[in-house]
């Protein structure tokens, strides 16, 4: 049939030989290649029975760090929220009272600290911006969930377990045990 616009052009290529026209040889060749893969090493992992470790620099869920004595490092300076391109971080600062020195490292601390994981693009800029090494991105990929609210991670969800009182949990969180 004549094409509508005469735009089609026959490209000169060498005509097929008789053997090629049969297609049989090509089908057999393709079958041979695919069949030979039965004897090769399997590239897949049997998830979820087996899991593949993520590399240490992997940017997954955020963690709020504590220092060696179990005090929260974050001083609610807001630099992470400022650096965040997705505006995912919100916080509220509070002043440390006398007698709370064992809880917070600095005189000012974050009373509320939330990261919206639905907004977050896991770029790692918050980690880079933090002057206190308080927030960092762990190796855990973000899990799925049913509601939107559950993706807003509160301070309790983000804080790493206390190395003094919750040694077991800390080991678990770091994937040791």
């Amino acid at each position, binding site marked *: *049939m004549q*094409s*509508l*616009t*005469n*735009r*089609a*052009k*026959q*490209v000169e*290529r060498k005509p*097929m030989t008789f053997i*090629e*026209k049969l*297609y049989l040889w*090509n*089908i057999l*060749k*393709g079958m041979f*290649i*695919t069949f030979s893969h039965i004897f090769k090493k399997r*590239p897949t992992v049997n998830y979820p029975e087996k899991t593949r470790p*993520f*590399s240490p*620099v*992997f*940017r997954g869920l955020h963690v709020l760090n504590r220092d060696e004595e179990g005090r929260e490092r974050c001083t609610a300076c807001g630099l992470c929220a400022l*650096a*965040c*391109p997705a505006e995912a971080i919100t916080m509220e600062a509070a002043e440390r009272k006398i007698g709370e020195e064992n809880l917070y490292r600095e005189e000012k601390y974050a009373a509320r600290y939330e990261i919206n994981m639905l907004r977050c*693009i*896991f*770029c*790692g*800029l918050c980690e*880079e911006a933090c002057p206190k090494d308080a927030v960092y*991105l762990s190796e855990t990929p973000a899990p799925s969930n049913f509601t939107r609210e559950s993706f807003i991670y509160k301070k309790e969800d983000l804080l790493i377990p206390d190395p003094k009182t919750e040694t077991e949990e800390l080991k678990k969180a770091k994937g040791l045990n």
Partner: protein
Amino acid sequence: MYTETQILKETSTSLLNGEGELVINVGPQHPATHGVLHLVITLNGETIKKIEPHLGYIHRSIEKMCESLTYRQFIYVTSRMDYLSAHINNHACAMAVEKAMQIEVPQRAQYIRVILDELTRIASHELWWGALAMDVGAFTPFFYAFRERETITDIMEETCGARLTMNYMVPGGVMADIHPNFQQRVKDFIKLFKKNVDEYDDLVTGNVIFQNRLKNVGYLSPEDAISYGCSGPVARGSGVKSDIRKIAPYDIYNQVQFDEVLETAGDSFARYLVRVKEMRQSISIIEQLIDNIPEGEFQAKTKAVLKPPKGEFYTRVETARGELGVYIVSEGGTTPYRIKFRSPGFSNLSALDHISRGSKIGDLMATMGTLDLVIPDIDR
């Protein structure tokens, strides 16, 4: 008022007489468009009379969003444009900021950037190769392509920290130094890939059934390629020299030896051949660089807050799909006044109507496959 039956009756009689038109929608949710592309196709029988791409389904106004982000932040949003060559997008944006701020990028960072660029290019072409084979009806190549692509994403994860949206670029270099295993793993990959790409040729390229689906389909003449602004493998398949790495070398591309792959036939098979050969060229670029990564800084010293001087800055790079241009207008503040991206996918898509008029609808998927459209890149 017409009733449904009347309309049906009239259209079917006129179609039978060979004069009617049938308008069908392909997409926005269609398995063969690899994304949310919406095409309105006017058919005469099985012959395509007109194709109208309708954009806007996944418009996220990235350009506008960038105007409210600082020069450090906006780079990471562009990973979401052409997600298959995220690293190269970031590269273009980082280069634009460096040009504006006149930052000298250390040699080591340039080497790392180019190696990762080429790995990204291979990964992108791999995915295209598997998807194209699947479009024309072969399923196995898709798995083989993903097997190799997985090796690349593993390398990316180990060094950059993420598998798809790498976010590894910062103005002035790269975010962190490469992983100690990086060089060894890339070398292992090269060895593996060289063996496997021959297998690709055996399985798909040399296959007569596959060739018959692509040959003489979707012819794009060199003149049309230029007038539609096509770039990348689409233009090179028509014999138009358009490789930015050759025309305007950036970073260390002027120090490596590689050929710009050109095919003159201009049909879908020519575009296919260009991409497969380009994968081999990328491998040879990586081979030249991987052992010679110089010691030194991976990041130049920059100010914490970047404030480029007043002016307009334009940089362009060669992504896996063609020429990506980044145009920044700066007013001297911390955020850009205006950002414009010239994305390769958009221009390549605009040629689709032209090259598929008069062909059969069955050939459309092969044509679209070889144009290698990534929809978030077309519709930012």
